[in-house]
Each structure stands twice: as C-alpha cells, then as structure tokens.
C-alpha cells in the first residue's frame, strides 16, 4: 500500500523522524531509540520492512550505497508528510486537553 497521506504507523513516524539526519542500519535503530527517549525499541525486521516500503513510496531515498551499507535520507515528500503528520498529532493532543482539567 502506497502512503496516501493518512495516519502513519508509529514505526513509520519514528523512522522518518530519525532520518532527519541521514543514517544507516544498526545506528538508525539506536537513533530511533534515542529520538523516542528509549520508549521505542524497533526490531531489525520491522525497521528493514519500513525502510524498503518508504523507499518505494518515495518518502526516503538513498544518500549513499556501497553495496553492504546503505545510508538513507528523508526526501522532500517525506519531510512534508512527516510535518503533516506532526500537525495532525498535535491537533489530537490539543483536543485531548479537556482530559487534564
């Protein structure tokens, strides 16, 4: 399923977020854990699946490829999608404010 602008899965959101700085493989896994403050530990199978799908959808692209190691970066479309999702999530949080009263 190509990304159609709807709500993102948590895995997609965090991979895009982590890829605001180009990164690769195992380091990317650690970057995801860091950017989620240790809350999200993404398995390598999940990460690899998300990467190959988002590359096909044009949300991320290869910055460097030496055969074994592929470095990914976020594309313009990807960053646009990420910001849109961020605004959607922010709206969700603001709407939930009534719960804090």
């Amino acid at each position, binding site marked *: 399923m190509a990304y159609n602008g709807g709500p993102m899965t*948590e*895995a997609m959101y965090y991979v895009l977020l982590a890829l605001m700085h180009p990164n690769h493989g195992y380091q990317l896994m650690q970057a995801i854990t860091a950017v989620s403050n240790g809350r999200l530990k993404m*398995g*390598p199978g*999940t990460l*690899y699946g*998300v990467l190959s799908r988002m590359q096909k959808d044009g949300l991320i692209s290869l910055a460097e490829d030496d*055969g*074994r*190691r592929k470095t990914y970066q976020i594309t313009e479309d990807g960053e646009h999608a990420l910001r849109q999702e961020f605004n959607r999530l922010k709206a969700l949080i603001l709407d939930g404010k009534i719960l804090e009263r």
Partner: protein
Amino acid sequence: MKNTVRKLRPSNYWRIGEHECWFTDMANKGYHLKKMGLHFAKFEKGETKKTKYRIDVSTNKKISPEQLQLYAESGWDYVTSYQYFHVFSSPNERNALELHTDPAEQAYTLKKLDKKLGLNAWIGTIALVLMICMVAAIWFLDKTPTLILLEGFALQQTLLTIIIGYTVLTSLQAAISIRALRKNLLSGKPIDHDAPWKSIIALILSLAYYFQLLQHLVQSFHFYSLQKRKQKHYL
C-alpha cells in the same frame, strides 16, 4: 566427527510458529538446524544450547546483504532458506531484540507471498476443474464406464487427476493459512513462536507427506510403463 541427522518436517511449510518451536526444541536436544529442504530438515549434532529461531518472510527468494548485515548486527545469525522463508537464530544468552516488534508492519512482508499463493491456488483450481471435466468426459460421454474400466486406458488420466487434486488442495490450504496469518498480524496479533508442533494433526500431516511421496513414486511408475508400452508398440 560431524554427525548429521535428517528429519521430516512435522508441519506444513507455511506454518511459521510451529517450525520455530520445532527448531528450538531440537536445539535444546543438541541438534542444530543446518538446512531446510522441501520435506526434510538437516540437523547437526552438537552441544545443547537454548536457542531462539525466527522465520522471516521476504518478498524475494534471495535475501539482501543489507538485511543480513542489519540482522547480524542485531544478534541474529542467518541459518537457511526455503523458498520465501528465511530462518535466523540467536542464542538466548545473547538477549537479542525480536526481529519484528510491530505485527502490523510485519503483515506487509507477507503481502507478496499472499498474492502469489492466492494466484497459484486459483490457477490450480481452474486447471483441476478442466481436468475433472475431461476425465469425466472420457468415462461417461459414451455411457460405457464399465467398458472403460475394463480396458483401463482412462486409469492413468484418472490417477493423475487425483494426484493433481491433492496438490491443488495443498496450495489452497497454503493460500488460506497465509491470508489468515496476514490478517491476524494486521490486527496486531503477533506470531506465536512457541506454537506446539507435536500434535495428532502434525502426525496426520507427516503421514500425508509419506502419502505424497508414495504418489510421486506411483506417478513416475505410470509414466515409466507408458513409455515402455510405446517402445513395445514401435518394436
């Protein structure tokens, strides 16, 4: 001295959880998986070791070096592949993170296999229906089924149809199971890595495998006799 044993797989190839559990149980007994074929798995005798096994489904028959590297760095060693299924292992003491931490994302890895198996099942079913029609025509079109039974020339076609029927049934089963697994994953239900493989059903399934092997033998015998008959004819 290296000691290898071959064992018949206890469950159908598309049952992921059952196979993972079986490999783990074997490793606990000191038999470590080396290779997995169509029907048999090859194990190497060694020290008992608590080991986790995970089967990953890929969209290609070959697994990319990038994926292998990422898995290796995360503590998962590549063991073997059969068709679209790739087996990875990790000793318990390594405490490696699960391969898949998000079932819904894992569902996407099954998409291509699901489509392929679905298509196979459809084509097989159509072919089977055509064959049944053809064989039925041979038997019943001139309303002399007894004569045809006695003459025996429709027997081979009939047997072949039964054998193909069994194969098509298996491919239907595979398609339905993988579809169900994908749906489960999509709704957030992870694969049960400790699915019991020792059961009555597993026993029946292994008997079914022997039956299948027997069928292949019978089939090749028929082709052989057909060939022989033709040769005699020419002589």
